[in-house]
């Protein structure tokens, strides 16, 4: 019995792509027909058993799904509270949860007859995921990446090139993820007839936030089944880091209707909230107000004049000024809670996880682990936390070693 895309029917977004007041399609007219085409193609694919079977086959035989759920015994013991389980997306082929969505969309592009893929990347994990999926399916792949991110994620740049992708440096604006998305959209506008934009998170115009959620929902569906098998009960808490928010949405969704399960998203607190050098959109609502960026309405870090602010995080994958529209809705509904971890707290969690569990987590995932370190000691030993270990940390060694030196 496969779990791929077997989500219960969900009431959001509506047919206009709205998650309550958030989401939508704020894009130039040139792209509106392409989005309409994508919506139709996706709905058809989703209803096609052959498409789902192919996606499922690749997830199992190529990505290596299901990813394990590991009981972090030494970390649990060390913290002296709840039992901690790690959802091991770091063990996926190409090293992160990003491959789930990249494969899903690449298959969809192939089905739509689009042979050219453009993608953006911050940490490089989505770029690697896209390059991997394109190599596997024989598609041309162009990855836009900010110059700042290229400098701090060299191993992933090398990987993308080895996999046959062209990495195009982006020198505009803050030269990070948001600027890479701008360039990817500009490319898509220009080459819309031949090109699919493989957006890597639950961001952007409808149908991306919905489609990426669906492709990532396998994480939570597996984790829910696994914890029931292993512990005989649901977890008390599910924790995930939130940049755009795809790994968090991916693990949250299967638990959305389980009211006893607390869902916590962890944003990047950077150098701390007070100084403004962070990417914790929900933590400082003076800086982050409802706005429009990259096609969607959501919380956006911006100046009083509506200019998008440059964010800061030690982890490139969380360094983004807006957040997926569905997270904004989950927060309004109080179904999920959002907090943040600073660079320092994430680094401490990174080191703790390395030493106690023999796992080198991505710096993004280390933000979720930092919250585990805060929460677990307050809980009883018979309680359970699942944390989404969204990626592996090999790519971050240069960054970490430079800070620790």
């Amino acid at each position, binding site marked *: 019995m496969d779990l791929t895309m077997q989500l219960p029917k969900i009431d959001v977004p509506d047919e*206009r792509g709205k998650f309550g007041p958030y989401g*939508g*399609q*704020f*894009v*130039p*007219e*040139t*792209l*509106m*027909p*392409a989005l*309409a085409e994508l919506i139709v193609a996706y709905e058809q694919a989703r209803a096609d058993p052959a498409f789902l079977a192919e996606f499922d086959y690749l997830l199992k035989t190529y990505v290596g799904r299901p990813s394990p759920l590991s009981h972090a015994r030494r970390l649990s013991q060390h913290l002296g509270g709840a039992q901690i389980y790690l959802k091991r997306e770091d063990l996926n082929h190409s090293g992160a949860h990003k491959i789930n969505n990249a494969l899903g969309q690449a298959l969809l592009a192939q089905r739509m007859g689009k042979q050219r893929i453009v993608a953006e990347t911050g940490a490089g994990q989505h770029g690697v995921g896209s390059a991997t999926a394109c190599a596997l399916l024989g598609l041309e792949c162009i990855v836009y990446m900010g110059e700042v991110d290229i400098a701090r994620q060299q191993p992933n740049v090398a990987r993308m090139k080895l996999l046959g992708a062209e990495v195009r440096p982006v020198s*505009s*604006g803050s030269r990070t993820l*948001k*600027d890479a998305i*701008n360039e990817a*959209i*500009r490319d898509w*506008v*220009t*080459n*819309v*007839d031949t090109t699919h934009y493989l957006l890597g998170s639950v961001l952007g115009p409808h149908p991306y936030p919905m489609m990426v959620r669906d492709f990532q929902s396998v994480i939570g569906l597996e984790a829910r089944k696994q914890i029931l098998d292993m512990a005989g009960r649901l977890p008390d808490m599910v924790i995930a880091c939130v940049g755009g928010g795809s790994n968090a949405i991916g693990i949250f969704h299967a638990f959305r209707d389980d009211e006893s399960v607390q869902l916590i998203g962890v944003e990047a607190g950077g150098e701390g909230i007070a100084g403004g050098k962070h990417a914790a959109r929900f933590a400082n609502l003076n800086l982050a*107000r*409802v*706005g*429009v*960026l*990259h*096609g969607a309405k959501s919380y*956006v870090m*911006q*100046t*009083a*004049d*509506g*200019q*998008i602010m440059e964010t800061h995080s030690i982890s490139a994958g969380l360094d983004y000024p807006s957040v997926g529209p569905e997270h904004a809705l989950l927060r309004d509904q109080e179904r999920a809670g959002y907090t943040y971890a600073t660079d320092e707290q994430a680094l401490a969690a990174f080191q703790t996880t390395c030493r106690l569990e023999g796992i080198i987590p991505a710096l993004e995932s280390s933000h979720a682990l930092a919250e585990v370190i805060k929460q677990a000691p307050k809980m009883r030993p018979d309680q359970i936390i699942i944390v989404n270990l969204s990626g592996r940390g090999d790519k971050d060694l240069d960054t970490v070693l430079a800070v620790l030196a």
Partner: protein
Amino acid sequence: MDKMEHGRSHITTAFQNALATQTAALMPYFTLGYPDRETSLAVVEAIAPYSDLLELGVPFSDPLADGPTIQRSTQIALENGTTTAGCLEMVRELRGRGVHVPIMLMGYYNPILAYGLAPYVQDAAAAGVDGFIVPDLPPEEADELEQAATAVGLCLIHFLAPTSSPERVAMVAARAQGFIYLVSLTGVTGARQQMQSNLGDFVNRARAQTQTPLAVGFGIGTPEQAREVGALADGVIVGSKLINVADGAVDKPTAVAAFVRSLREALTATAPTGD
């Protein structure tokens, strides 16, 4: 200025007057605050006599429909401290200096949301703005701003692109005000070597469904291209090339005005003499 028309009728009259003497109305674009406040005002003042309408850019940090030339100009304008409120103040000053042609403000949606829709359209109307061009606001998302603009007599301009389906052409035709902005190509702003060969078909597809003036922009950078497009459409929009001309000149207002004048002459020279 009390006697000056504003909003929709101002725009409509400008197209009617232009089409009476030229093949098409000329609408140059320039970025407010580029390369600095005073120079941009001087440039706009200098080109106004050769312009039927003006499109003035309000800078945004993430202009995803713009190519490198306009991106750079808006980035520099922001670095110079240009704000949305400052742009409205510049329009007020231009009106005071005797610039009477219709002024369209081109800007992305987020700064407008940050300003507040109702205050934005009211302050814009008070400053002498006639309409708004918002590249990341398709009709599906435009109801709120359109209602706010209409309430103060101003126009929200809608776009059509070569990719627009017949259904979308009909939808835009049904709600268009002032004019429709036809994006000549699939791409971002910026001067190109050649116009799209199928531009005539695209213009005709739109023409078949509406009486509203059709203005073509994106990729037009020479008098020859302006003439070519002017023979097909009711309006010609030229943007990035004005920035390029400004960049290459010491006396920017004079150089840009000379270029705009050459566009104007190209349109006038080909005006049909008969029928």
